């Protein structure tokens, strides 16, 4: 087991904190220590300007950094970002 849920929640909370200032949010869809997959979703429904939220690549890097500061070992990060693919 490479991570526990509390560490993931704490990392997501850190990032979500400043996303909320722009009206966005970030939540955990799934964090499975058996597969080492951490699956998050960005919510931008209430954001007036989606582009004002951290750009997708930067957001992903910020999330990864927050997780790596709390979790030792590898993990696979999946971020559902509604802005991607548009």
């Amino acid at each position, binding site marked *: 087991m490479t991570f526990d849920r509390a560490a993931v929640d704490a990392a997501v909370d850190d990032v979500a904190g400043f996303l909320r200032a722009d009206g966005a949010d970030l939540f955990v869809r799934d964090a499975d220590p058996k597969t080492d997959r951490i699956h998050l979703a960005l919510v931008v429904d209430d954001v007036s300007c989606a582009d004002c939220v951290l750009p997708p690549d930067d957001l992903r890097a910020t999330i990864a950094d927050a997780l790596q500061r709390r979790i030792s*070992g590898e993990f696979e990060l999946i971020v559902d970002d509604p802005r991607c693919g548009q």
Partner: protein
Amino acid sequence: MSLTSERVEVPADAREFYARAFQERWTDGLPLLPATDDAVDALLDASPYPADHVVCVLPPVNGVATVELVAVNAALAGVEPAAFGFVLAALEALSEPEWNAFGLTTTTSSVFPMLIVNGPSRDDLGIDFRAGCMGGAAGRGSMTIGRAVALCIRNIGGQRAGETTKSVFGQPARTGFCIGEWEERSPWPSLAERRGFSADDDVVTVHGGKGTFPMADIHNDDARDLLYLIARSMAYPLANMFLGNVENGEVVVAFNPMWAERFGNIFPDIDDLTRYLRDNAWQPIDLWPEANAKLLRDRGRVDGQGRVHLVERPDQIVPIVCGGLGSLHAIALPSFGESTMQSKPVVRPT
């Protein structure tokens, strides 16, 4: 518990005990833990069998491996009681006649038992299946279970390089090789399930492997093309499996989880995957110099297209999923050839 193996007085100091282990020829070169009565008893308490139960007879010297003697070697390796059943299962597996311990413990080849573990106990026991699983992950289960089996072959089986084994090089696995399969990241049934066990069983599969054969790719986006390259790579010209009987032996191929996902998308049925690998694991007969080519022709190894296939059947290619998330790599565990992998369930005390 009343133990019957001989008692030996040794230095209590760790370094002095290490030196003594060399004098007694107990060690594979690495430090050992003292096999005190307490340590041995704790392991025997975790065994479903009595201490005098004969697990197997181990070549080359045909030493009788009782549960007690196996426990002594497991204590030397630092096996924790909950993991002792895995050592017993491995020894039961490798002593099956079709594994050919008789040949494999004495050959000039580098072959050694390579243990692959399935089941729910992998994480709890530190049986590595993620990044560095074949060296570096340092899980206690991986490092001690494999080593205990190796020490049994050395101390009970009497395998000694240059004396009772003719292995020219040996290989790093001769101090123990024990990995898990990352079942949760595999798009296919686990190795143990494919071999008839339940997902709830802890199972040890013993493969007569010659080492780790690394393969890397950073270019190919096409999963089928990548599998083609893997198949052709496994069929390297001096592979043991070109020397003997085409219907004997298996090649284990370890896919990292990222590649496994890609391969699972195009081959959701593992039988189709292994068929594809088998069909593409070949070399043209022209590759070999005439002296070798003649032998291959005489043995009927060349098909109508001038190809020499590594194996006869798809089931002789055995995919497993393990390793880290960095992608880019696969590892084959080439076979000695004249050996058939064996699996045994871990039995616990009732």
